């Protein structure tokens, strides 16, 4: 749904992993933007019906962009700037209280 107009120059790029795959992102952009630019949709399934969803507003209002970031479930990806080495998982599972 979103594609890069220009690739960020090496000096302005960081690498994150999304679902285990390396994704180049532009410094300062949000995790949600980086994931969309990598062509990864849907990014989650709605909690009641399981319908596919993806980031919608990119400004923090709709909460459609929830992803697991560095092991924390349901982080608002559009409000989270990318950092080198960040590990992102889409289809964020529900966090669990189970041990083991």
């Amino acid at each position: 749904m979103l594609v890069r107009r220009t690739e960020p120059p090496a000096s302005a790029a960081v690498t994150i992993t999304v679902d285990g795959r390396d994704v180049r992102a532009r410094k300062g952009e949000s995790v949600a933007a980086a994931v969309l630019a990598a062509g990864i949709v849907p990014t989650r399934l709605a909690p009641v019906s399981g319908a596919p969803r993806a980031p919608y507003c990119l400004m923090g209002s709709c909460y459609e962009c929830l992803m697991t970031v560095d092991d924390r479930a349901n982080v608002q990806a559009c409000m989270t700037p990318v950092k080198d080495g960040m590990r992102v998982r889409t289809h964020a599972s529900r966090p669990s209280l189970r041990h083991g």
Partner: protein
Amino acid sequence: MGERADIVVIGAGPAGMAAAIQAAAAGLAVAVLDDQPTPGGQIWRNVEGAAERGDLKLFGKDYRRGLASVKRFRLARVDYQPGARVVGVEPDADARDTGGDVLFVRKGQAARLSCKRLIVATGAYERPTPFPGWTLPGVMTLGAAQIALKTSDLVPERPFVIAGQGPLLLLLAAQLEAAGAPPDAVLDLSDPGLALTAGKSAAMAALLAPDYLAKGAYWLGRLRATARNVVQIRALGAERLRQVEWRTAAGAVGRIDVRTLLVHDGVIPNAQLTRAMRAPHLYDMAADAWRPAADRLTGQLDDMPWVHVAGDCAGVAGWAAAEALGESAGAAAATALGRTATPGRWSRTRASRARALRPFLDRIYRPARAFQRPDDATLVCRCEEVTAGAVRAAAALGAQGPNQLKAFTRAGMGPCQGRMCSQTVAAILADAQGRGPGDVGLMRVRLPISPLTVGELAGLNETEIKLPLS
């Protein structure tokens, strides 16, 4: 007790930055909390980054101007805390007018910041646009596309369609065109009588992007050629968006194959914080939106004099008015704390000039009917997946108001806390009861206005508070 400041400003957009600069110039200790990583707010989002990558020209003169404002803000003596999300405000215990605490989350930790005066400058967000298929991946807001362009140099994947109404529709079409990604079609959902006209485009351009206007009528003409006035849209697809279906007032139906659909229906004040504080709010019929009851120039709340609102959260009037009103709120707050503040002489004029345009804009950019009366099958609450039909069924049980509807249907109970549905729920209820939206009101907002983790909240109290068990 957490930290203290004389004045806390929430939001680092045009309004918040201007307010902070004023108050700091008056010699006060000012803290600015903003949830974005860089200053600029919505309009000047990532203006420093765009300048660095040499892309300022894409967005026009108004965006370029932001660079100067952001530079002034960076130079001001304010304690600027980016990445800080405010989740609530608590007035001091007994006296309403001595100040209060701002509760916020930053770097995984909840904290309090006490202040004597608060300036809320949280801007606006896009009016929710429920229509069949609006939750499909591939459908985004127009604002989202603009943010992606500003922060990431991303453009919509083609073919793509822009649908809705409002001045931003045309501006973004032009910005995307300048970025080499013109929309494949524009579906204009304005009332047929208000459809895209040369006058409307020109008014919009004069307001939002004078430099585009100066460059000639090329893109306006082009847009008019691709725009189609329709009354209904549907997004079709299974795993993701494949087609947009439209219907005209005359009943003609058509479909377009698309990868991306951008929708927009104007912006409304982001008043979550003042609503959570239970400050009185007014329903502005022309804008079809609620705003806090406040002094129109200083933004001082009628009911809580220690709090000011400034910028679009006080009533949408654009960045120029926001900057001017921010300045006047900053000066008023500083004066209230015994300082001399001298807002630029132009600020009052600019504010009233921008304000003066508003009724005209509200008249020509009325909210799209297609999004006001979603059919029964359309999801109204995206988070809890509640349809318009379910809301209507609950309204038929005689729900007294939006809070009872929320309790009966779960609409508004998800993480967005009603940002995406409370207006629609209220409109459906108003219809069912033959009342006006101003009479029905909105569902209540409470602290925390945005989710935070149990662990973050657990760290809020520095000393342990015992909870009585029963």
